[in-house]
């Protein structure tokens, strides 16, 4: 009995040691890219594709019935696509970059009011050819995706419905919805098809025209994370801090500003976790892990406009100024410390050149 107890203790100790060393073992660069792609990128592009599918039918229902229930269902379907998009907005490479798909899906920010300008022209001309296959894709990116559809959904003067004034608008809205289905499907397909972007990133080498090593694949993901932190900080938070900035928040007409912020931060946090950059930190820099975790708690404790998030884990509500500064600090630490610790060289000039 005494012997078996000793053996049991020895087994627990060895398992504990093995677990500890396994936890401390950082992933290879290729494994980082693989984890990010398989646990984050693919599920999120799939979610966006799936969210978009019901959109054309939801438009059709409102246009046939004009009922408040159908309108609510359309707004819900629209919100699902917008929030799914928030999780991939910062993946600005590969299939999203190809053919300008990102701008076509979500033309934002729009400080010039291009969406309104282009919409006015189309609504004035009422050319029904716009609903023919491929015709919308020839128009400005500003009228091909979610922001243009949002305007049509929320126009109180001419609401979508079975009325004569709304007839062309319904045709147009349906074409946009179908276009969003096409675009999001192309993005998912571009990632997942045999020989697609997932394969390209996970099979780096001398013959690969984009990624020569696993490190280059991992750097691409880290750059996407940094782009996301910059976009959320500069375009969503900064206007709350600097009141001279005049920038309409994303999808404000639909009341989705807070939800878009929450989805952006949640996505970035998931992507950050998938990379396991902190596993590379040496003991003297281990404080960065605690700082980063505290920063994510801060980012997730605000609604992005100065209020408290329903998912807040901090006892107090951080000010938007603190959230903005923390966001920049996190960007700084990922670019200049965590990625360096992981042996990933994210170039100063290549990251955001001019």
């Amino acid at each position, binding site marked *: 009995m005494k012997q078996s107890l000793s053996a049991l203790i020895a087994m627990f100790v060895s398992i504990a040691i093995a677990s500890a060393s396994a936890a401390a073992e950082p992933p290879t660069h290729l494994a980082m890219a693989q984890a990010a792609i398989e646990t984050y990128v693919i599920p999120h592009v799939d979610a966006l594709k799936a969210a978009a599918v019901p959109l054309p039918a939801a438009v059709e229902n409102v246009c046939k019935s004009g009922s408040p229930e159908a309108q609510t269902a359309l707004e819900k379907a629209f919100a699902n696509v917008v929030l799914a998009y928030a999780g991939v907005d910062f993946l600005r490479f590969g299939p999203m970059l190809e053919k300008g798909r990102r701008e076509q899906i979500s033309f934002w*920010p729009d400080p010039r009011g291009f969406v309104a300008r282009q919409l006015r022209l189309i609504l004035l001309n009422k050319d029904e050819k716009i609903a023919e296959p491929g015709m919308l894709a020839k128009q400005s990116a500003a009228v091909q995706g979610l922001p243009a559809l949002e305007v049509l959904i929320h126009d109180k003067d001419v609401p979508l419905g079975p009325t004569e004034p709304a007839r062309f608008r319904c045709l147009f809205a349906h074409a946009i919805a179908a276009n969003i289905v096409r675009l999001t499907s192309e993005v998912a397909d571009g990632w997942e098809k045999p020989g697609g972007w997932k394969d390209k990133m996970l099979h780096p080498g001398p013959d690969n025209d*984009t990624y020569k090593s696993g490190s280059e694949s991992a750097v691409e993901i880290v750059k996407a994370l940094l782009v996301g932190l910059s976009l959320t900080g500069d375009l969503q938070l900064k206007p709350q801090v600097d009141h001279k900035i005049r920038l309409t928040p994303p999808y404000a007409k639909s009341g989705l500003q807070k939800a878009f912020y929450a989805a952006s931060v949640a996505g970035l946090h998931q992507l950050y976790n998938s990379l396991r950059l902190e596993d590379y930190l040496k003991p003297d820099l281990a404080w960065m892990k605690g*700082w980063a975790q505290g920063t994510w708690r801060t980012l997730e404790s605000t609604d992005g406009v100065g209020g408290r998030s329903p998912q807040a884990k901090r006892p107090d509500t951080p000010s938007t100024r603190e959230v903005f500064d923390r966001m*920049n600090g996190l960007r*700084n630490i990922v670019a200049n410390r965590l990625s360096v610790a992981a042996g990933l060289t994210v*170039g*100063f000039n290549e990251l955001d050149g001019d």
Partner: protein
Amino acid sequence: MAIDRRSLLLGTLAFVGTGSIGKAFAAAAHQTVAYVATARRSSGDFCILLLKADGSIVREIALSARGHDVAYHRPSGRVVVFARRPGTFAVAFELGRNTPPHIFTGGAGRHYYGHGGFSQDGRLLYASENDIAGERGVIGIYDVGRGYKKIGEHSSYGIGPHEIMLLADGKTIAVGNGGIDTVPDAWRAKLNLDTMKPSLVFVDAESGKLVAKHAMTGEFKSLSVRHVTQDKAGLIWFGGQWEGSPSETPQLVGSAGPDRELRLVDAPGGGKDLRGYIGAMAVSNDGRFIAASAPKAGHVLYVDSESGKVVGKSNLKDVCGISSEGRQDFAASSGFGVIRYETATASTISEHQLQDIAFDNHLRRVA
């Protein structure tokens, strides 16, 4: 340089700067300064560096935000550093004097694109700017003797003028109109990628009249013309940034003149091998060789302007700053603090590594 919580926090708080400029750190030694460049410290702070040829720092001028390129007037030793797009400050100083830098702006409703140049007599400074409300590019004109007071503007005949260069004739300004619209409220967002109309234009410096315009159309409509330099024959060489589908990336480097059509260099591997992005252009002191840096790809491409052929391609991670050195050689700087001297056939002459420095996009020879 070690990082701690305090420096991290200070670095982040400084992000929304007020536009103030810090003091100069060291006395200038005009004769020993070989290069001027903008850079970032590992703390996240931005600065202007005056460097000796061996890479050692002679003087450092703190910046509240990221700088970009350097305009230099050799006879007077005057230097102006411009804020990076969509920044609004410019910093002027003189190499031979240790006086505090003078800061000026393009005025209300304008932001800089990071580039500019002096007139040959040094009395005027030209800068590439955005007329934000007017949605058009302009060339700002400044009276140097009156404290860089803005005295006028020319049209750039396009949106998003990036590098501008007064040509050797002293009368014509070459402008790389990137075609990309920016509004500072949306920070660096590119607002018109699907409708952009890039071009290389030549403008009469005195009258502001259009001399010639080479528009990027058809399959090249997304080739944003950014950086320019001039060879000994007077041709302008440009480097572009591809804003279209990566799979359709064309050649990125080309040449043109007011009276000569635009031609692209047939670089092996094409623009895709350069990752669609040229970050800076330079010409050798004898005017024969052209250098184009490609930071995303980590290459410098060298072209013989006489034959139009590529004669060398070097490898340096995150290389962007490029400048002439000697008669036919070049100096290249990287985001990892490297200054490397190399020949136009891409042979390394020597290399210096600076600690705690990330060199920004441009490096200007001033010796």
